[in-house]
């Protein structure tokens, strides 16, 4: 095992450990911070592969953008400080087993596939190459996904705004007294909607 491999395993272990902490922490704000560290670990992996540009993007977009957004939405829900209820032991064991067997299963498959090593051949894509390819219409051009993503973000943003916007008071009352609400005796809550804006963004990018 050479130094490079040792560094790889160290970074992976760090990323996984932080990910585990993010999932198991009982305070939601701490989870977000653990997630941040886990994403930094992934950026380190990119550095290790010597694709510095991608690593920088990873830090700017995920660490700088997404996690900050997540933290924002946590604070917007007003319950940032409260501890989440402890998960049932049954569920903890179940999910740990599922994760373990999933990992073992995919590790086994990948291990037996026999990937061919590409040797020490590095792909050195310069920033300008990445930029040109992203907006090129020819071979290996990614202009269409690029444009489609912008439409997707537009609609996600409109969706967020519609959900999060507070209806004027008298309108809410008018709807609230409609007969279809018989099934839900609890007072209507707008809070639930705040959480939605978060997965809307994070599942995508």
């Amino acid at each position: 095992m050479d130094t490079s491999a040792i560094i790889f395993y160290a970074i992976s272990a760090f990323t996984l450990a932080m990910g585990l902490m993010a999932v198991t922490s009982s305070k939601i704000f701490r989870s977000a911070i653990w997630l941040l560290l886990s994403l930094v670990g992934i950026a380190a992996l990119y550095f290790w592969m010597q694709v510095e540009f991608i690593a920088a993007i990873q830090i700017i977009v995920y660490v700088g953008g997404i996690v900050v957004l997540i933290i924002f939405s946590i604070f917007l829900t007003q319950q940032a400080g409260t501890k989440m209820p402890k998960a049932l032991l049954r569920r903890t064991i179940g999910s740990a087993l599922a994760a373990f067997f999933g990992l073992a299963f995919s590790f086994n498959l990948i291990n037996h596939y026999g990937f061919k090593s590409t040797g020490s051949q590095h792909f050195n894509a310069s920033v300008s190459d990445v930029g040109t390819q992203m907006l090129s219409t020819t071979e290996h051009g990614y202009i269409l996904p690029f444009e489609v993503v912008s439409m997707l973000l537009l609609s996600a943003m409109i969706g967020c705004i519609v959900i999060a916007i507070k209806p004027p008071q008298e309108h809410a009352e008018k709807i609230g007294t409609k007969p279809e609400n018989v099934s839900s005796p609890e007072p209507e809550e707008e809070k639930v909607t705040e959480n939605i804006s978060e997965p809307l963004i994070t599942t995508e990018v």
Partner: protein
Amino acid sequence: MWTDFLLLMKQEMAVIAMIFILLFMKLGRDRSNESFMNTMNVLLLLNLTLGFIGNRDGVLLNEMFRTSKLIALEKNILNLAMLIVSLQSYSWLKTHKHVPEFYILLLSSLLGMFFMISSGNLLMFYLGLEMSTIPLAAAANFDLAKRRSSEGAMKLIFSSAFSSGCLLFGISLLYGTTGTLIFSELPHLISNNPLQLFAFILIIAGFAFKISVVPFHLWTADVYEGAPVAVTSFLSVVSKGAVLFVFVSVLYKVFSPLATVWYNMLFILSLLTIIIGNLFAIRQENFKRFLAFSSIAQVGFIMVGISGGSDVSTASVIYFVLIYVFSNLAAFGVVALVSSVTGKENISDYKGLYKTNRTLSWVLAIGLFSLAGVPPTAGFFGKFFLLIAGAGKGNYLLIGIAALNIVISLYYYLRVVKAIFMDANPTPLQPIRIPLMSKLAFVVCIAGVVTVGVASPIYDYIYSLIAQMQ
């Protein structure tokens, strides 16, 4: 080059244009809801007619986008369904605060489906799929004051995030083992090795979530129940139809080396889907949940057709989706109207509907007959062709059980029809005035249910388009 772009992508361009027209209208002076809805209905009608003119085959941007007459037809079916949904949501949207946003969300979702259907690359396929579900999650929350609506939206976004996770993991394994994302190159590189099989299973799981095949169907009923009826009908008809179209082409083209594997998988999944969909539909009391389970069962029948793996299967699936658009939207249209006027959504509320609302009763009954597959309606021919296509493989056990399940499904569809026409109810629903838009939608649906089954040129046309592709 530019004319190519404009001509081949014209359906996408039209949808994008509509989205921007809505944005600018929203930014401009205050308009009444009616003016928004009328403009949109006219534009959607224009869009539908435009879709039939001057379709060509072609590939753009290194196979990121491909189109053919068949794909254009599939998009037109979705356009038609979108138009009907828009007409039917008239009475619900009339009092809503966010009409333009509602249309923007549905149109973005439609745009995502178009890109997904046209994709020749797994990246574009994934983007299209995401774009077709994320706006819908926001739209499912459109009854802003209702808790159930938020709950449905949350369930939709979580389950779709999970399924996207499965799908992405599968795609990444496939990319890792083959080194390409392009549909036309993949079949030569896929073989029967365990890792690629695992990737295949994950990708299928992603699909199965979206079309709610049985082990992955748990979100369906809750989301359908919580979401506003217009969104529910869009989810059950348009997005399901779009994913089915892609499912067929991905299975038949990309995964053609794994044909025996997916045949066995479809065999088990389709039976499970039909049986569980049917059994749960029997015990539903809420009309939307009832239609949710009935739509799960319908997907099971479609998968029987897909398992045939021939041109006939593709044709019968597209044909069935067209029929399904008409019959399901007929049923949903009535539910939408009744729920927006009276707020009632339970099957027991529909008892004695025939006494007070004759037209609605007949529309609902014809829609349900077609869903059940009762002979003179189109639904019968649709299911018949699906079973014939499935029988092409010679697995008569599958066909036999599926046919038996048609009989079971008759029970619960007719139970609703009995409630409408025969059950006595001292306090039936009040007479409901049908707005012009809903009337138009009903006429289109009923005309579709009555004619599509009998008019053989439609099936022949679909089949000829598929035969041309070879």
